[in-house]
């Protein structure tokens, strides 16, 4: 089934002094999909997400919705990005952080109870964000992401810090969000996690786009590159393409 293209990212480049973090990366975000940005550590996944969301300035790089180029403000109406490893408003309680998300960003009040339940946040509500463990903080960040009013959510390393059970539960939660009309772009360095949850993939290596497509499309690309029968395992495909 052909899905509508929500956003097109093109020519995304970011340099830190002499180091080029990402170079001329382009990909599309399609409505109602979970798009995985995959790559080894240092591939430029976080930089790509931040430049796409407008949290960092690209030099150069464009994000277009439909036929129009976007400015930062119209981008923020469609995209919401949640970084990895942050502890926003560390002295405030989890409940207050979620309330702030609703009040300041005009978040999805209708999802509040569901998100809190799915991410098992009720026992944490009175705790300060800064006092949480890594995994607990990740769940709060995911809640902040899912409460955002924007239709496209970009999450950096959503499974980082979660145990196996929590990862599996999160997959269900994210899939439920997509079924309800959300589009997710996830940066993931664990290939196995990505293979389970993502519909399509953007493969990055050393700041360059290696391939984009569904698992089947990547398998074909890998086989044509290697000149023999396609690998079945996503990790093999990834290694073949990178």
């Amino acid at each position, binding site marked *: 089934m052909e899905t509508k293209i929500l956003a097109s990212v093109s020519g995304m480049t970011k340099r830190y002094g002499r180091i080029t973090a990402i170079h001329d990366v382009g990909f599309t975000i399609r409505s109602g999909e979970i798009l995985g940005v995959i790559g080894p550590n240092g591939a430029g996944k976080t930089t790509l997400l*931040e430049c796409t*969301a*407008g*949290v*960092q*300035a690209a*030099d150069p790089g464009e994000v277009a919705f439909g036929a129009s180029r976007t400015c*930062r*403000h119209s981008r*923020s*109406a469609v*995209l*919401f*990005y*949640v*970084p990895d*490893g*942050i*502890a*926003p*408003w*560390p*002295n*405030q*309680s989890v409940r*207050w952080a979620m309330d*702030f998300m*609703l*009040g*300041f*960003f*005009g978040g999805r*009040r*209708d999802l509040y109870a569901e998100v809190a339940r799915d991410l098992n946040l009720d026992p944490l509500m*009175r*705790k*300060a964000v*800064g006092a949480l463990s890594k995994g607990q903080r990740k769940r709060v960040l995911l809640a*902040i992401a899912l409460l955002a009013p924007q239709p496209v959510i970009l999450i950096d390393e959503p499974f980082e810090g979660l145990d196996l059970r929590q990862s599996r539960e999160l997959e269900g939660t994210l899939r439920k969000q997509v079924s309800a009309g959300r589009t997710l772009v996830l940066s993931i360095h664990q290939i196995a996690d990505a293979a389970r949850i993502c519909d399509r993939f953007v493969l990055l290596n050393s700041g360059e786009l290696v391939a984009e497509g569904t698992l089947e499309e990547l398998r074909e690309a890998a086989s044509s590159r290697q000149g023999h029968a396609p690998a079945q395992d996503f990790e093999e495909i990834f290694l073949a393409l990178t």
Partner: protein
Amino acid sequence: MRSPESPWTWLLRKEWRELISSWAWWVLVFLMGPLVGVSFISAVSTYAEASGWGGTAGGVGEAFSPLVGIWAPTFSACEIAAAFLLPFVAIRVVSGDRQSGALKLEIQHPMSAFARIGAKAVVLLAAWLLALGAPAIAMALWRSYGGTLYWPELATVLAGHMLNAGLTIALAVAAASLAEHPSTAAILTLAITVGTWIISFVAAVHGGFWERAVDYTPTAMVAQFQHGLVRWDVVLTALTLIVAGLTLGGIWTRLGVAVRRRIAESLALGALTVAVILACRLAHPSWDTSENRMNSFSPADEQALRQIRKPLEIEAHLAPEDPRRVDLEHRVFSKLRRIMPTAEISYVYATSIGLFEQSNPHYGEIWYRLNGRSLMSRATTEEAVLATIYELAGLKQPEESAEEVFCGHPLAVPPRGAAVVFYLVWPGLVVIFGFGLHWRKV
């Protein structure tokens, strides 16, 4: 369903909660009590002694003004807090967002960066206003001792300290937005504060341009307000610098904007700020709100001086560090500039201290030129200078009215209870509230 409160109100609430959950602010409030206390107690004791308490000669305090005797020293504690404590509170409020990662979330809201920085500034000013509770208690104590409060001059002192706090906040916000790390921002802020003190030192030694520029440093500005003087050019310059600092902070918290563009915007802002400050210097109005009119000549003298339409030129052959020049400048020329803004006053000197110029026969001369005539005098008192100007202008020296003479408010009362209030009650309450809020995890 959308929240009934606007995003900016939410931001304001968030900034307030972040502020009161920071130890930096509680330390500032805690220290305000002892700082104000030690200044107030010392000022009241000195004032009482000068007013005849403890066996000193009665009547010495006749000309005493509470503005100079009590409020200038008491509020100087606020100046210390604004220079050394408030910047850290402001830096923490700005850098905290960057350090925790909250900034990356908040900048995704379409609200302008300037509105975001504005929320921080409003909260910090409100916090400073609360910290000014300590001098407010000092006022209440003074009143309870039977002292007089002259509200126009007190309002001027408060306004001066609010403006000074605004300048500190704007500087700290700009530094915290520019620097990646709070410690760098703190060093930058203190470096600029010390830099303004160096300007004062250079002005005292070299005079000239620096002498005029020093009027716009926070220290000089606060000193003017503490003497009940409101100069429109100084107020406008301070407001311009506050807006510029906050705007610079706004520019550098827009992480999604290319650094090159942020640099260009900062340079344009700098140029615009300089242009506005130069324009501010043309604003001459000023108000003397002190009860004893310490920044003004007598009303009769002012009326007489206003009759002089021709441009008055004064050339004083005195070095910057010569005490006569300091007297002349502070007791006479500063008043003359207020009433005759077109008067051209210049100094001629070869050295900074003037010690080695004494052999020059012209050293110490003060030349007055008006309407093609000129007179020379060496006197530096207010009466002598005015007499020379009247003689040059062909005006009769006005009579001094006995009713216009300020008799002062001597008060020979010790600072009863002040030590308990400022050293025990205030810090105790701050500790109780601070820890209480912290334990509740705000």
